[in-house]
Structure formats: C-alpha cells, structure tokens
C-alpha cells in the first residue's frame, strides 16, 4: 500500500485533500439535502435553478481542466474544444431523443424532427442509439477519434502555435456548418430538445436533477485528480519541457508527437464526457455549441483562473459563468463587453490568473 500512499501524497498535501473532501461533502451531502429534504418555504432550500446552474458550471469546469492540460502544461492552445464538448453532447442527446419514445409532438417512433422532415426510418448514424451504453461510448469515442486523427496529422506536420489554434478554430466552425444541415441527421439548427427521460427516470424531477448534479461533481473531482496525477508525473514534466523547448526534448530521446497526441486526445475525451453530462441537465444541444466564440470562451475561463494550475481553471469557469448568468439577466447588452474587458485585464495584470493572485509560489520565473 506504500506506493498508493506515496501517490496520494504526490497529488495533494493534507490541506489539499481536506479541501477536496470538503468540496465532495458539499456536492454529495449538503447540496442534495438542501435541495431535496429542506422544504421549499425554508430560506435554506436550494431551488432547481441553482442545482441546474451548478451542474452546468461543473460541466464547464471539466472542460476547463481538460483545456488546462493541453494549453497550460503542453503549451498548445486549442480554440476548438467546444467541438469535442458538443460531440459528447450530441452523442448523449441521441439517446435522450430515443428515450422520448412516442411522447413527442407527433407521437411517432421516430424523433420529432425526422417526422417533420418526412423521414421514414432512422439514418445509419442513429444505429443502436436507444442503448445508453452505446451512446455513452460514442460520447467518449467520437471526440477521442476525431482528436486523435486531427492531432496526428497536425502534430506530425509540426503545425504549432497560432497556426494550430487557427486550424482548430476552423475545424469547429466547419463542424458547426455541417451540423446546421438537416441532411446531417442531427436536427439541423434546432438540434435536440424536449427530453423526457434518462435511464427510465423522468428528467426534470428534483431527484434526477440532483443525481445528475452529483454525477457531474464526481466526474469533475475525478478529472481534477487524473489531471494532478498526470502533471505531477514524469510525463507531466515532459509536457512542460515540450512547451519550453520541444527540440531539446526530442534530442533527449522522447518522441514528442506521441506525448502531444496523448494529452490532446485525453483532453478531447474529457470534453466529450463533460458534454454528455451537460445536455441532460440543460435540456438542449444545438450547433451553436460549436460556434468559434464558445471555444474562445473556454480559453478565457482558463486564463482567468490561472493556466497550469488545474484548480484555477475550475475557479475561472465558475467565476466567468457565474458572472455571465448574472450579467445576461441584469444587463444583457453588456456581457460581451465585460468578457472582453476581463480577458484584457487578466492578460495585462494577472498572467497567472486568479490563482496566481492568491498564491505566490515557485514558478514566477
């Protein structure tokens, strides 16, 4: 058991584990109790709105951690991570559409949009989509496969820096145009919505909502620990070295293509899982999730929270999206200005983000 203890100590110190334990208690005990057991009349009751918002932000936080692995550590800025998130969401969305059954507007076996388009049977890409396990597999495999092939071609051709960022941006834009088309078979610009059930449970009941919330919290914590395991390993140091001096890493005998491809594909898979958790909670997925602006926002969460810190991007995702929820209700016109201003201020004054502000540790050089 000694190696396990050593690994746990490597991930976080005592304070870190206690903080993580406190966060887990909040997510798995306090929040569910306040939401389910405390009556709605009580001031301590947590409403559906907050449960859904919290779950949504945790999905974004998973994406932010995934982005930090590839950008903060390996130095590869992706401006197309929204695509992997959306692919995971679409995979889960297919299952949720099939779970509607005959309760749709047209009371047909096929999803409503197919009836509307006068399709008679499910297209090939919907094969087996009534099976949860199959769609869960797709949510992981599709982003992973796309990232692997795209990453292999880009990294093998030694596409780097801003050129890589621009290509990822183009990739998500192209995918958005593809998904806007009805013929692609995923509901065109309306996407999927009006979900009724997941795994047989009604999707909007408080119990299901809290279960999804807790599942998202568990995945977020697991993602954070996996990220810590990677960045504190020798592999994590190789990634940092690739960021600083890739040619030297190759000269030391490492095949940098394999390393970049590993972390890039893993990052995309994590985004896919986050997307699959997001769709049942938010209740809609459409091609606008693939818009270039969405992917740029992901980079902003990470920059605001603090690159190369893992915890920082979680905070960044929370702060920016919390701010977004507030502003888009209070001053809807000004949100984009606030976001832009925030990005400029962070870039100018907080190169290490919020976490850099809170801690002054090694790594300032």
């Amino acid at each position, binding site marked *: 058991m000694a*190696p396990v203890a050593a690994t746990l100590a490597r991930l976080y110190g005592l304070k870190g584990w206690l903080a993580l334990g406190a966060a887990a208690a909040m997510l798995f005990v306090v929040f569910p109790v306040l939401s389910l057991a405390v009556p709605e009349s009580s001031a301590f009751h947590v409403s559906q709105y907050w449960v859904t918002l919290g779950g949504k932000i945790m999905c974004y936080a998973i994406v932010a951690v995934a982005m930090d692995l590839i950008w903060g550590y390996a130095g590869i800025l992706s401006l197309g991570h929204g695509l992997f998130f959306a692919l995971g969401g679409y995979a889960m969305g297919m299952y949720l559409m099939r779970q509607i059954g005959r309760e749709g507007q047209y009371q047909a076996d096929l999803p409503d949009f197919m009836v509307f388009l006068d399709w008679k049977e499910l297209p090939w890409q919907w094969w087996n989509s009534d099976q949860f396990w199959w769609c869960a597999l797709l949510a992981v495999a599709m982003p992973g496969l796309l990232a692997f092939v795209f990453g292999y071609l880009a990294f093998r051709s030694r596409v780097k820096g801003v050129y890589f960022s621009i290509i990822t941006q183009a990739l998500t834009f192209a995918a958005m145009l593809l998904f806007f088309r009805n013929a692609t078979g995923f509901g065109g610009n309306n996407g999927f919505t009006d979900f009724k059930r997941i795994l047989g449970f009604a999707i909007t009941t408080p119990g299901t909502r809290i279960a999804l919330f807790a599942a998202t919290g568990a995945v977020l914590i697991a993602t954070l620990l996996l990220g810590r395991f*990677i960045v504190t*390993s*020798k*592999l994590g*140091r*190789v990634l*940092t*070295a690739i*960021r*600083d*001096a890739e*040619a*030297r*890493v*190759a*000269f*030391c*005998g*490492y*095949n940098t293509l*394999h*390393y970049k491809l*590993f972390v890039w594909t893993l990052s995309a898979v994590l985004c896919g899982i986050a997307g699959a958790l997001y769709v049942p909670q938010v209740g809609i997925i459409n091609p606008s999730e693939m818009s270039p602006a969405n992917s740029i926002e992901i980079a902003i969460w990470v920059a605001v929270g603090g690159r190369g810190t893992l915890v920082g991007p979680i905070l960044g995702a929370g702060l920016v999206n919390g701010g977004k929820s507030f502003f888009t209700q209070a001053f809807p016109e000004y949100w984009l200005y606030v976001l832009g201003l925030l990005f400029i201020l962070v870039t100018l004054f907080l190169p290490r983000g919020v976490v850099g502000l809170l801690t002054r540790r*090694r*790594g300032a*050089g």
Partner: protein
Amino acid sequence: MSAAVQAPSSIGVGALIGHVATGELDVTHGVVLYLEDITVSFDGFRALNRLSLAIDVGELRCVIGPNGAGKTTMMDVITGKTRPEAGRAFFGQTIDLARLSEAEIAHAGIGRKFQKPTIFEHLTVFENLELAMKADKRVRTTLFARLAAAERDRIAETLRLIRLDAAAARVAGALSHGQKQWLEIGMLLVQEPKLLLLDEPVAGMSDEETERTAELILSLAGRHSIVVVEHDMAFIAKIARRLTVLHEGAVLAEGPLADVQNDPRVIEVYLGR
C-alpha cells in the same frame, strides 16, 4: 544547404558489417570515432575536403581553426545532420554514422552540446536531469515512471560533477549563463554518451566560469571520449592534450599542444590572415 548524398555504392567491408550490427558500440581497437576522407560541399564550396580524424577511447581532443575551417560541419557530419558526399564516418568499429538518423546516432551514444544552451527553463535543475536521463522514454512508461534509488544517486553524482548540487531544487531559468551551460553538459552526461561533442562550451562565460568549465572537462576526460571545438585559445591551453587544427576543410596539423603551437604552417594560417 542540402549536401545530402547517397552513400557510395562501393562500400567497404566495414560498412557492410556496420549495417548488420548497429546496436552495440565496439571499441576493441581503441578508437571511438573514425573519419576518413570526408568531403562535404555547399554549392561548390568545399566545407570539408578529404578530412580524416581518429579519436581514441577516453581521449580529450580539442579542435581549433579559423572561421570557415569546417569545425561545425564536421560536428554536423558526426551527428547525422549533414551527410558526407564521400568518405566514411564510423562510431567504434561497426557503427556507420552515414546510415543512421540524428536520433539513432544520439541513441547510439553520441551527445552534442550546441553553442547556445537549451535547457527546460520552467523545471528545476533536478528535473532537467531526470528528463534527460537514459531510460525507456515511451509515453506509458513515462506516465508511471518512478525514480529508482540508483537513478537518484546518478543524478546526485552528476549534480556534484557540474557543481549544481546546491541548486538542485532551483528553477533552471534562474541559473546564470555559465550554470546553464553546465546543466546542459550534465543533461548530456546522464544520457551516458560514449562520445561527447562540445561546441564552444565557454562562449559567453566569465573568466571564473571558464576556469571551472576547464576543470569540469578535465575531470570528465578518461571516463568519456570528448571532442571540444573552441575559439578561445586561453581555454584551449588549459585543457588541450592533443590538438587538431582545421584549415579549409582539412587537417592542417595535429599533435601535442606545444608542437602544434610551434608549427610554422599553423602560425602562418593564424597570423597570415
């Protein structure tokens, strides 16, 4: 710039053996590096003109020469960056350098330090050595790698050798220029090269750092075979045992330092410019 030329069709017996056995370095004849009649031209300019050179096991050899004498091109041929048009380059008895890629040559045991130090600025000195150290460097093994006690000892030993043991936990980017040069030499050493090529190791160093680098290189001689290319004659005078003078792509003079310094041809090349 490409001087890449296919290996000549009439390859010798040695080359054939070399092709068969590329794995282990064979130095039974006491020679670690053997260059014979190496010729390289760039657009008609002969950078190397039938250059021949042999380095013994454990030898410390200094190579000097005026600008354009072919020092860097020679390093490039040895490390596989440039292919010779003619001539043979052997590592030990059996490894034909003309047939291997840069990475394969590095793997076979030739380490090269470039003029400008490149280290991993955001990692500590210790971590720089950890990454450079000879190991299985595939993704999965690296993810689950743990430092064995023997490996820690090896790093500690190297840290003492390059005089950075007190700075082991410091971020490499915060080191002085001279210390960065030493760290890079250390990173080469933990890769356990059989032959070490040092390209102007004291460029940009203070006098004191130059002095300490000379001590370091002298302490490595015997354990490793080392080729030092340098301009700084004061530095050469401190470390040189055998000296090779290159001129116009060929060896002009070779021998103990004192003999070479008094060679009238050498004096003419250096003074007659």
